[in-house]
C-alpha cells in the first residue's frame, strides 16, 4: 500500500490544496490530511538528519503542518518558494527548536504556541502588558470552564479556533448571517469569562 492511498485528495496539486485551505470549504479537512500525507517522509529525514526519535520527528512534522495550515489560511504564506520548500524550512526550524528545548529540559514545543502567535500581532510595549496579565491566568481553570459551556457555544468556538470564518460557520451551522455568528460567539466568550471569574 503506498502513501498515496491514504491521501484524501490524491489528485489535488499543492496549489489546489492551498485554495481549499484558504476557502474553508468542506474540503478543508481533506486538504489538511492530504498535505500531512504528501510530505510525511520528512519524518524519516528528521530522524536521520537531526537524530530525533520517531515520536519527536512526528511532533516536529505535525507542528510544521499545523503552522503551515494557519499561515496559508491567514495568507501569510506568500508563495515566494514552493510549498514543499516552505514546509521543509519550517520543519528544519521545528526540529532544531525541539533539540534546543530538549537540551534545556523544556519538552513541550507547542504548548502555548497559539497564544504566542496571537501576542505577536500586538506591538512590543502593549504586548508586554498583555503577556504579564496572561501569565496570571489559571489555564487549567479556563480549560475546565470551556468544557462547561453549552454544546452550541463549544461547537461555534471550536470551529472558529479551527480557522473557519464567521461566514463559513454560519453556512455550516445553518445560521442566517455571519453577524449572528459573531455576536453569538462573542457572547460565548463573555459567558466563559463570567464562569471563570466566578470561580477565581
Amino acid at each position, binding site marked *: 500500500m503506498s502513501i498515496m492511498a491514504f491521501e484524501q485528495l490524491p489528485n489535488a496539486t499543492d496549489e489546489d490544496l492551498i485554495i481549499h485551505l484558504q476557502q474553508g470549504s468542506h474540503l478543508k479537512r481533506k486538504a489538511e*490530511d492530504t498535505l500531512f*500525507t504528501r510530505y510525511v517522509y520528512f519524518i524519516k529525514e528528521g530522524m536521520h538528519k537531526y537524530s530525533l526519535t520517531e515520536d519527536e520527528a512526528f511532533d516536529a512534522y505535525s507542528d510544521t503542518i499545523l503552522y503551515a495550515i494557519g499561515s496559508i489560511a491567514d495568507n501569510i504564506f506568500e508563495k515566494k518558494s514552493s510549498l514543499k520548500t516552505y514546509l521543509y524550512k519550517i520543519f528544519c526550524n521545528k526540529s532544531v527548536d525541539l533539540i534546543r528545548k530538549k537540551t534545556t529540559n523544556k519538552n513541550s514545543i507547542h504548548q502555548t504556541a497559539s497564544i504566542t502567535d496571537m501576542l505577536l500581532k500586538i506591538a512590543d510595549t502593549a504586548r508586554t502588558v498583555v503577556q504579564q496579565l496572561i501569565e496570571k491566568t489559571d489555564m487549567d481553570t479556563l*480549560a475546565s470552564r*470551556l468544557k462547561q459551556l453549552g454544546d452550541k457555544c463549544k461547537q461555534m468556538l*471550536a470551529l472558529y479556533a479551527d480557522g473557519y470564518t464567521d461566514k463559513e460557520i454560519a453556512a455550516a451551522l445553518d445560521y442566517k448571517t455571519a453577524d449572528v455568528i459573531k455576536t453569538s460567539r462573542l457572547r460565548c466568550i463573555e459567558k466563559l469569562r463570567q464562569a471563570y471569574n466566578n470561580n477565581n
Partner: protein
Amino acid sequence: MDNLDYIDDYFNGANTSEQIKLFEQKIMSDPGFAEDVAFYTSATGTLKEQANELKKVRFKEIYLAQKVIPAKVIPIKGIWRYMAAASVVAAVIGLTLFFTAGKTSPKQLADAYITQNFATMQGISMGTKKDSLQNGLDLYNHGKLTEALVQFKSMVKNDSTDAVAKKYAGIICLRFENYDEALQYFSSLENDASLYINPGKFYKALTLMERNKTGDKDAAKVLLHDVVDKNLEGKDFAVGWLKKL
C-alpha cells in the same frame, strides 16, 4: 461586549493602521481593557491549542495507518517476476469475485477494519488528561485490554463529556464482543454536538456489522448512508462498504 467586538476585530485584521495604534494605546492606558485583551487571547489561544491537539490525533492515526503495510522497494530487474506473480494472483481473485457475485459479509468487512485499525492505538495527550489517556493507551498497546477499559471508563465517569475516552472505551467493548455497551459509547459520541470530527455514527455501523445479527446489516447500511450523505468521519470506508454489502 463592546470591548470584545473591538478586540475580535483587531485580531481578525479588520482594523486600519490608525485603529491599531489606538487599540495598542488603549492597552497601555486602560487596565480594564488590557485585562479584556488578555482574557480574549488566553481563551482563543487555548481553543486553538485544543483544535491543534485534535488535528495531531488525526495526523497520528493517518501516520500509523500508512505504516501498517510499508512500501517495499523492489529491484527493477526482478520486477517482472513479481508482476507475473501478481497477475496470476489478481486473475485468481478476479475469478473468485466473479463467481461469488462480489458481495462480502458485513462481519468480514468489519473484521478486516478492526484488525487493520485497532491493533494498536496512539493518542496525543491533551493537557491535564495526559497521564490517564496515555496510561490507558499504553495498557491497550500492551494487550491489557481489561485494564485499559477500566482506565477509559474511569475517565468517562470523571468527565462525562470526555469524547476521546468514550471512543477508546467503545473500541475495547467492540473488541470484547460486548456490542451493546460499545453501541452505548458510540451513540453517546455520535450525540456529542461539540465535536466537529465525530466517528460515532461510523463506529456504530461498524459494531452492527461485526455483530451481524438479524437486521444489523440493514441498520448499518442506513448509518453508512448517513455517514456518506453528511460527509462524516469514515466516509471513504462507508462508500466502499456500501458497494460490497
